[in-house]
């Protein structure tokens, strides 16, 4: 859908006349308010993202925490790229990952998944894990 900026709305009103202009302006403002509210109505939800992450098989390759499963799938939790880059990659991945189109996962759903992945913990340093620390340097 085309974005409606305030400048575009003003220019359009200048080309219209009289009370018709008022009616159309009110209509346009109402429409603008609706679109704006729709844009702002659904901030990304980590909770919803968690369900979508599980339901769309993301954990098959990336693990339930997005921690990565070696050659099967890279670590994505927490994500290392911005949401736009994350969505762009899901649409046109490289390597073995299949592309997920917006028919399967709309941008809003991917934003929710991204929000979920941002809540995932980072790893402790291996030296701070008693079973791993002694293995370093060997």
């Amino acid at each position, binding site marked *: 859908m085309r974005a409606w900026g305030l400048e575009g709305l003003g220019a359009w009103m200048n080309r219209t006349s009289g009370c018709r202009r008022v009616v159309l302006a009110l209509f346009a403002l109402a429409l603008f308010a609706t679109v704006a509210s729709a844009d702002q109505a659904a901030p990304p939800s980590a909770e919803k993202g968690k369900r979508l992450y599980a339901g769309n*098989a993301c954990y098959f*390759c990336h693990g339930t925490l997005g921690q990565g499963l070696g050659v*099967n799938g890279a670590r994505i939790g927490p994500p290392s790229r911005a949401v736009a880059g994350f969505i762009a990659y899901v649409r046109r991945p490289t390597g073995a990952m299949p592309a997920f*189109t917006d028919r399967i996962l709309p941008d809003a759903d991917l934003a929710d998944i991204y929000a979920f992945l941002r809540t995932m913990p980072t790893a402790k340093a*291996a030296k701070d894990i008693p079973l791993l620390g002694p293995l370093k340097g*060997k």
Partner: protein
Amino acid sequence: MSGAAAGAAAFVSTPLAAQAPAQGQPAAAPPEAVYTTDRPGSDFMVDLIKSLGFEYAAANPGGSFRALHESLVNYGGNRMPELLTCCHEESSVAMAHGYAKIEGKPMLVMAHGTVGLQHASMAIYNAYADRVPVYIVLGNILDAGWRRNDVEWTHAVQDAAAMVRDCIKWDDTPVSLGHFAESAVRAYKIAMTPPMGPVVLVADGPMQEEAIPMADRPRLRVPKLTPTTPPAGDSAAVAELARLLVAADNPAIIAGRAARTPQGLTRLVELAELLQAPVQDGKQFVQRMNFPSRHPLRGGNVAEADLVLGLEMPDFFQQIHTLTPINRLGMESRRQTRPGTKIVTISSHELLSNSNYQDFGRYTEADLAIVADAEATLPSLIEACRRLITPDRRRLFDARGRRLAEASQAVRDLNIEQAAWGWDASPISTARMAAELWNLIKDEDWSLVSDTTFVNHWPLKLWDLTKHYHYIGWSGAYGIGYGAPAAVGAALANKKHGRLSVNIQCDGDLNYAPGVLWTAAHHRIPLLTVMHNNRAYHQERMFVADMAARANRDVSRSNIGNELADPFIDYASLAKAYGMFGVGPIENPNDLGPALKRALDVVKRGEPALVDVVTQPR
């Protein structure tokens, strides 16, 4: 009377001798035949089997080899070989497969020539593709007049080995005991000659059960077994390879089934250290324990190499090309090596290729292809290289070795940092599972008797593998159902050495023939089985998810037909039902170490034990 009915009546009519009573005498009922023999043919078969040094005979019992079975336990005393009671013929063969990978020699397997072999066939294909010797004796009643009932007709076959002939190395159907003797020894010799493989010998029912004719007894003898020396590389080709290796600035060695024996590992380390050349395993599957996991020369980069040497690497093409992802059908594989990089192979693969099964992989365009057993060729290659190394090359090699050691250490440290991701996750990460296991076994004389592909090779990344028996490699042909029985067979081989056998067991694999757990319990085979219970046929689940995404359809439905859920399978109870210790399901990673410790204590007492761990997908 129709012709067919007349024929049937003739078939059941009284023998002519009984139809003619002696003159003047009333017709008497013929005496009941009481059939005994002091020396059935199967006794002589046992003499042959004993001469070949089999320790064990794995079998699910079957009527077509009942005489051989009886001779083994009574005439043979159930020793050398000892019978192993198996619940499925696939288990029998896969046990033999795992056993051979530790012991370096075949186990005897007995099965019906029809239904038993049908069960066994996938496991035979695994062993064939993995170039592992398995010695299979099939029972069959070839003589139609000998078959007593419907079962013996339905279990009889004209050509028993035909079903698996494309995935075995050799077979024969002897028609006399003398013939059986030669073929029994020949079969062993062929199975054990690299490239090794399964062999099939058909033991005819009447030949097993009938008494050895008196006239034959003095003539029957056990032929002498002369082990065959493995085929080593042609001396001129080896000299050329040595010249290329010593001249190379950045050689890379990729080892597949290179180390058949502990000597193979020692020789490969010697070659690598002489040249200061890196050694790596294949990309996807680790075929054998070829090289120590923490050796400073483990690693290397094919893309930077000016010479790549493949040693017994099946589908070598894949090792020097990028893989085509499943969701990029039709994409051309891209060669990873630089232009001008020399490609050299030493492989016995060409010495055992059948047309039907395509385990030979894509054709590799090599600059030099030495058709020989790699392990047998390494000594002459090492000597040839040693003679060519000048002080200048030695200095270059030493500098290269220092660089490789740093890179190898960096990779190992990176692996350890990566193991920390998801450390406290539930389901439990496979890295955590491997680390918890290592913590308990690192001071034992241990042996990993399972493949590591499905757990991201974490044991190979975290554990200190130095000995040939530290890892048995994968199945050979990805025939699922191999894991549990191969582990039991390998653990049996480890038993007499007092080694602690550890099996990281995939849930899907165990469910093909879980009765092998009973075999382990019954025969007191010490084996620690740790379930990698991701509650799915996970590889297939990923494939179906890929297909759903490609088709723009519901990815969530890829669980259908692939999940092992609703209900979850209780593997601890399964183990207990088969008479062994079981604990789990373990879902909290903090509970894992104590559960493994309890199970390990059981195994140290000489029994099998199972820990069910609910894990991440991989």
